């Protein structure tokens, strides 16, 4: 008897709900935008804002509604995501396959570079920069107060063992936030494959630079001579590397008097002392 009752009651309930719900869902149907969802599912979902929208969903909506035509704005996702988006949207995208990463072009820590005054205040590079461009004598270098570290969505930036601020290029997703926030302009993008960088940003004359920093580029052009194929170029008393040249760069790094050309194979620099 009880089995019969349970059979009847539950089956009836199931029937009512099954039929009811499927009818109701038809009667009350509201169309969902599947495209937005499809696009959003392809985005990495870090909500870093590199695309310029308020989070991934914002970008997804703009793409799906065809308000945004540029499908390559998501730098964390890189070319793969752009291609997937293109597929969903049925368009072609042109992408450069080079992965870029941010890096700090300065190796001046407390020991190596001089300061002009004692700074006391908010621990933030922009706050420090408000007053006389920061307390370092060098107005181009890294202030080391972690603005970029705080802003990086993937914690790619750290203080390395020298106390210098440094980007772990494997973690960097090239969102550019650190470059935006850095007041001194000492962060720049380099190719992920870059083997050497000139880790200095000082545009002061060599003699001036030498006075305040022991690892600052003095613009002596030694690198240009030592590695002529390496793409080294000195401008404004500062050497830079043109990464489209793929010649040898090591000789310059060895010859450079202040040793500011670093190999990126080992992650950090050797101190000039040892």
């Amino acid at each position, binding site marked *: 008897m009880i089995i019969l009752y349970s059979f009847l009651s539950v089956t009836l309930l199931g029937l009512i709900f099954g039929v009811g719900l499927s009818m109701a869902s038809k009667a009350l149907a509201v169309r969902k935008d599947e495209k937005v969802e499809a696009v959003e599912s392809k985005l990495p979902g870090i909500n870093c804002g590199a695309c310029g929208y308020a989070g991934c969903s914002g970008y997804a909506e703009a793409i799906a509604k065809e308000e945004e035509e540029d499908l390559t704005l998501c730098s964390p996702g890189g070319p793969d995501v752009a291609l997937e988006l293109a597929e969903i949207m049925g368009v072609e995208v042109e992408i450069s396959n080079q992965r870029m990463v941010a890096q700090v072009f300065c190796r001046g820590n407390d020991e190596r570079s001089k*300061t002009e005054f004692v700074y006391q*205040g*908010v621990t933030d590079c922009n706050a420090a920069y408000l007053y006389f461009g920061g307390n370092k004598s060098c107005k181009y270098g890294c202030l080391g107060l972690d603005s970029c570290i705080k802003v990086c969505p993937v914690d790619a930036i750290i203080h390395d063992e020298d106390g210098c601020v440094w980007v772990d290029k494997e973690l960097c997703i090239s969102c550019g936030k650190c470059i935006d926030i850095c007041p001194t302009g000492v962060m720049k993008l380099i190719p992920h494959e870059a083997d050497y960088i000139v880790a200095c940003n000082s545009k002061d004359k060599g003699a001036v630079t030498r006075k305040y920093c022991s690892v600052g580029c003095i613009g002596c052009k030694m690198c240009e001579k030592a590695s002529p194929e390496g793409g080294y170029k000195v401008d404004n008393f500062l050497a830079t590397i043109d990464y489209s040249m793929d010649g040898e760069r090591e000789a310059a790094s060895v010859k450079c008097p202040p040793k500011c050309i670093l190999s990126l194979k080992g992650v950090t620099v050797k101190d000039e002392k040892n």
Partner: protein
Amino acid sequence: MSEKQNMLITASPQIHGPETTAKIMWLVTLSLVPAGIWGIFVFGARSILVIGVSILASVISEYVIARISKKSTILDGSAFLTGLLIGYNMPAAVPLFIPAVASVFAIVVVKWSFGGLGGNWMNPALAGRVFVFFSWTGGMTTWTMPGTVHNVADTVSHASPLGFIKAGLLDFSGALHGPVEFLSNQGYPHSGMAESIAEWFGNIGITISYTYIDGFLGNIPGCIGEVSALLLLLGGIFLLIRKIITWHIPVAYFGSFALLVWIFGGLRYNTGFFTGDPLFHILTGGMMLGVLFMATDMVTSPITGKGMIIFGVGAGLLTFMIRFYGSFPEGVSLAIILMNIFVPMINRYTQPVRFGTRGSKK
């Protein structure tokens, strides 16, 4: 050039007012000292041990955690103060592991889990106290009769006035004129001090019952630092004058509580509305200590005057509810930490009115 190296650059203002965190904390500590000395005087030397253990445990926890998180916060005095308050909130006969656990809980769980001084949203000392109270109710409710009261047989394990009344009222029926009469009917002990003072008042034609005098002076069983309403009041007034606390919370708290007791307090004695005895309830239990020193903890109370008033009224209401209807004789500590929960919400709705947004008159 070397002169330049030493120059200090800071943002404005270039001068600073006299207050510092450490000064505030040590001044609060100072203002608590008299009440503590009284507690030690009436409850005996063991009180020193209890207070010492709480302070030590809290300062050591603070030191260890601050070391781990590479900060130095011992000298700001807040851990010392928390420890002191925990000590003050313990019965003199409490097993010593209890204050130690309370202090560690206060500092580690309630304070540093939230980032240390200023990050916590619940009063550490009270949370610590409540934690051990709920864990070891027995140890936390074993009271010592003050040494100033001589006519009792058992000085340890005597009910506090509030506890006595609560237990008595659980199965009470009939009519009585309030707690004072209840205590004297049941022969609750009083001090010689109260006798002589009451006599003195009697000579000038004022009758005053022993209970009020003992409650005011601190000749009642209770936690070490909470019994002397007089000395706590003086400490509180000192803090008010030094502008370390503001009037809002004490006035709102005492006011709302007294009002509720006056209106509804008599119902428990079957004497009807408007017959409660607020004075008795303010003078006994942890009211003075709680209202003046713990509800006013700036970290865990609302930030604007308006908010503080809401906070005080809420705490007054809850204290009333718990004291009169809950199962614990004492409601202050619970009421305060309950209101601590509401502080972020209160702050949200009591922001200051911005200049130039009030629809200025032209």
